[in-house]
Structure formats: structure tokens, C-alpha cells
């Protein structure tokens, strides 16, 4: 832990009683009051997360959009200024280098927001691929702090701190220069919880003060600081994938069931398109499903069995705090992907029955 990097909010986490763990080389709180309590706060009121560990790469220049289009699986040409989309960067075999948000700030300036665990790998990948384009790429991760204010009361709370009318920042849109208590921030209506909310990018020197004023502004509305534990249970229930769980460099977005974000029919080429097209034409051999268990709890990496035969693996599993049920995602052979299909999860020494259900465990509560 001594070698773990600290975000600008590290001392505040300690002050607030955060239980600090090493996550992808960062010393961050897994929880403060408890994962369940924080989870429910975000579903019902609001929670504030430190997500300063996330990576930010700015792409500027004449080819900023063309390059982004080549880099990611989703269709960047559909974006207008200040609009955002979600997609993946794939390798040539169709595996996922990382998933990311693409912010079209303006025609010649695109912000890519990537996973903390992949910043070095991603930046090397992006820099290499950028050589063929008229763009500059800059890793701004260390100069950017990020807070996520999430939950149905997020807008009401943040609105008390800024003159900008937040209603005008639509879902998956952003605005630069939003002044929150005198501090200029980039604010987007995005998040990783399945609730309405904002991600706030700021100068690292401003992060502690911003976190304090936000927590203060929301204290009487049930806003509490939240850790990485609740971030994971929230994103999981809302069927938002996590790199390293639902996909990685050998699991494609199609296998992970996120083909919606892969525009194989678009005219433009992107890295991995040929391989993914071929995979789609030949048919998948395995795919992500949601499942439910009457007894026991599944965890990332557990085997999925049909009797003696291993037919897949669990990518994420929890007892869902919102639903109170034991649910999970698994990548299994195609023969087991129909709704109602049955298999067993190897939980320590026992094989416990599981049934395939819709992976939309929780209906997202976005303001669109």
C-alpha cells in the first residue's frame, strides 16, 4: 500500500473514515459507512465518489474526430459538440483494450476517459495508433481530479452550488467552465451507477474543497461519501460492464453482450472491425448471460458447470443490495444462453443451481 498512488482526496478519505485499499495501484476507499448503506444512498438519495484515478487523454488537431472514429467501436460521427458516447477500444483480434467515454468537446478536441488500471497501456496504444493521423495526444490523468455525484437528488444538490442551469446539461452531454463555488469544472451528466448524476472534472488543487462543499450541500438530503465497493455493486445491477470482468483483451464486446456499442454496419473502419465482423458472421461460441441463484453467492472467476463439465465462468456475482437476490453475469457456451437455461455454479466444494434471467437486473433511472 505504501507504493499505491494517492488521489488529491486521500486525506479526506481518511478523515471521513474510509477503509483504504489498493485498487489498480491507487489507495482508495472501498467503503466508508458500509457498502449496503452507500449503495442504497445512491439508489434513493445521492452519493459522492472520488474517481480521480480514472484516466483522461486529450486528443486535439484536425483529425481528432476521424482518429476517435478509428479508435473506438461506436459511431463518433453521430456526436455534436459537448456530446458524449460510450464505446470500446478493441485490438485487431476484436478483444477489448479498454472501454471508455468519448467527449466531443469541439471538432478539433476530443476527451477520452479511460480506466485507471489501463492508463499506461491505453496511452501507449492511443499514441501508437495516432501516428497515422494529424492529432496530438496528451495524457492529462495526473492533472485531472474527478468526482462523481450520483443519485436521484444529485441535480438538486449540485444546483445549489452553481449558477449554470444544470437542466440544460442533457444525458451524456457536458459543459466546460461550470463554476462550482468559484471553481471552474467540466461537468457531464454521466456516471457508472444506473442513476442520474454528474461527473465533475477539476483541477487537483480544487478537489478537496469541492468534495467538502458538495458533501455539505447534500448532507441534509442524505448525500454520503461512497467507496469503490458500492460503485461496483451499483454498476453491476445496472448492467454496466467492468473491464477485466465482463471483457478483456481476449473477450470481445460481442461475446460480452455489448454489441449495441459496436457499429459493424458503419461505413468507417475501426480497429478490430474485421475480426468482429467475422465473429458475428460465423456465430458466437459463447456469450454473457445474467443468472439468478436460489442459494449461495457467485463471485468473479467461479466456474460454471453442467454436471462434470465446465461450460463457462462467472464474470461478476453478488447478492444484489437493491433486489436482495443472488445474481451474476457469466460467459457460457451458446447452448446455455436461452432465458431459463439451467446450469450450476461451483461455489467452493458445492455445485449450486442457477437459472438464466435477463441481465437487466435493475432498470436504469436516467433523466433523458
Amino acid at each position, binding site marked *: 500500500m505504501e507504493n499505491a498512488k494517492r488521489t488529491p482526496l486521500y486525506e479526506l478519505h481518511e478523515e471521513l473514515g474510509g*477503509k483504504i485499499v489498493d485498487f489498480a495501484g491507487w489507495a482508495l476507499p*472501498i*467503503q466508508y459507512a*458500509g*457498502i*449496503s*448503506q452507500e*449503495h442504497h444512498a445512491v439508489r434513493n438519495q445521492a452519493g459522492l465518489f472520488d474517481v480521480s484515478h480514472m484516466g483522461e487523454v486529450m486528443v486535439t488537431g484536425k483529425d481528432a474526430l476521424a482518429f476517435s472514429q478509428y479508435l473506438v467501436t461506436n459511431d463518433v460521427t453521430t456526436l455534436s459538440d459537448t456530446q458524449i458516447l460510450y464505446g470500446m477500444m478493441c485490438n485487431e483480434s476484436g478483444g477489448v483494450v479498454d472501454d471508455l467515454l468519448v467527449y466531443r468537446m469541439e471538432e478539433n478536441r476530443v476527451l477520452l476517459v479511460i480506466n485507471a488500471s489501463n492508463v499506461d497501456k491505453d496511452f501507449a496504444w492511443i499514441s501508437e495508433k495516432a501516428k497515422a493521423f494529424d492529432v496530438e495526444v496528451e495524457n492529462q490523468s495526473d492533472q485531472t481530479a474527478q468526482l462523481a455525484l450520483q443519485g436521484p437528488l444529485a441535480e438538486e444538490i449540485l444546483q445549489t452550488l452553481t449558477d449554470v442551469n444544470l437542466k440544460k446539461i442533457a444525458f451524456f452531454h457536458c459543459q466546460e467552465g461550470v463554476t462550482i463555488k468559484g471553481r471552474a469544472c467540466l461537468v457531464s451528466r454521466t456516471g457508472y451507477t444506473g442513476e442520474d448524476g454528474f461527473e465533475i472534472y477539476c483541477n487537483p488543487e480544487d478537489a478537496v474543497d469541492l468534495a467538502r462543499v458538495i458533501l455539505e450541500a447534500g448532507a441534509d438530503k442524505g448525500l454520503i461519501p461512497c467507496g469503490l*465497493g458500492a460503485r461496483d*455493486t451499483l454498476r453491476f445491477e445496472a448492467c454496466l460492464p467492468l473491464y477485466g470482468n465482463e471483457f478483456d483483451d481476449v473477450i470481445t464486446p460481442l461475446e460480452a453482450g455489448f454489441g449495441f456499442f459496436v457499429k459493424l454496419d458503419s461505413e468507417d473502419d475501426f480497429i478490430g472491425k474485421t475480426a468482429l465482423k467475422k465473429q458475428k458472421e460465423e456465430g458466437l461460441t459463447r456469450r454473457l448471460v445474467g443468472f439468478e441463484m436460489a442459494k*449461495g*453467492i457467485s*463471485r468473479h472467476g467461479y466456474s460454471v458447470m453442467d454436471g462434470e463439465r465446465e461450460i463457462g465462468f462467472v464474470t461478476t456475482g*453478488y*447478492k444484489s*443490495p437493491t433486489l436482495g437476490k*443472488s445474481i451474476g453475469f457469466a460467459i457460457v457456451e451458446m447452448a446455455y444462453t436461452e432465458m431459463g437455461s439451467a446450469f450450476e455454479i461451483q*461455489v*467452493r466444494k458445492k455445485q449450486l443451481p442457477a437459472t438464466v434471467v435477463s441481465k437487466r437486473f435493475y432498470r436504469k433511472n436516467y433523466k433523458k
Partner: protein
Amino acid sequence: MKIAEGLLYTKDHEWVRVEGNKAYIGISDYAQEAMGDIVYVELPEIDEEFEQEDTLCAIESVKAANDIFLPVAGRVVEVNEALEEEPEAMNENPYENWIACVEMADESQLKDLMNAGAYEAFIAEAEEE
């Protein structure tokens, strides 16, 4: 953090309450705090026999599954079924809510365990590192 007097403890933060040749097993306040919100307890089967330090059962918090190791060898004679309905009771009252009771195979193994004072010192030392 509370440490109950009169119990014996392991370095893995299980406790033992001895009644004759029977040993009731639970987890310490330190253990429940470290695990976080407990959502499921997978109890052992009655009559199952275990060696000392075998995995007796698992306690699942929101975040992860935690193995519970048996402090002394024995045969399971009772399990606390109430925990199946109310696993969170282990967070609230870790010393009241035992998990299982074994009939000890070798009572001399109790000398491998720490009393409350030794356990407190053990935690203090671990915290310093």
C-alpha cells in the same frame, strides 16, 4: 473494537467458547468489521468432521466470500440456523452469534489459542505493521 473476555481466539480472528468437550465457534468483532456487511452464511453440515484449521464454512459479505477455519478438530453437533435468515446479526453482535458447535476430538488443541489479553496484543501488533 470489542474483545470479549472468557473466549479463546485464533490469529484468523475466530473465537471459541468452551462448554465441557464442546466448542462453540464464531468470529471476532475485528473480523466482522473487516468483512463489512455480512449477507450470507454457508453453514457446515451436522456430523461433518474436520481437522484443526480446516475450512469449516464461509461467510459472505457484500464484497467477498471469507473462509472460516476451525480452531480445534472435531465433529459438528450444532449449527446456528438463525444466521441463515439473519446473517447481519454477526455484524451487530459477533460474540453472541456463534456459527457452529463441534465436539472436540482433542481438547489439548485449545492451548494453541489465545486468551482475550493475548488476542488484544496480537491485534495491536498487527495494526502497527
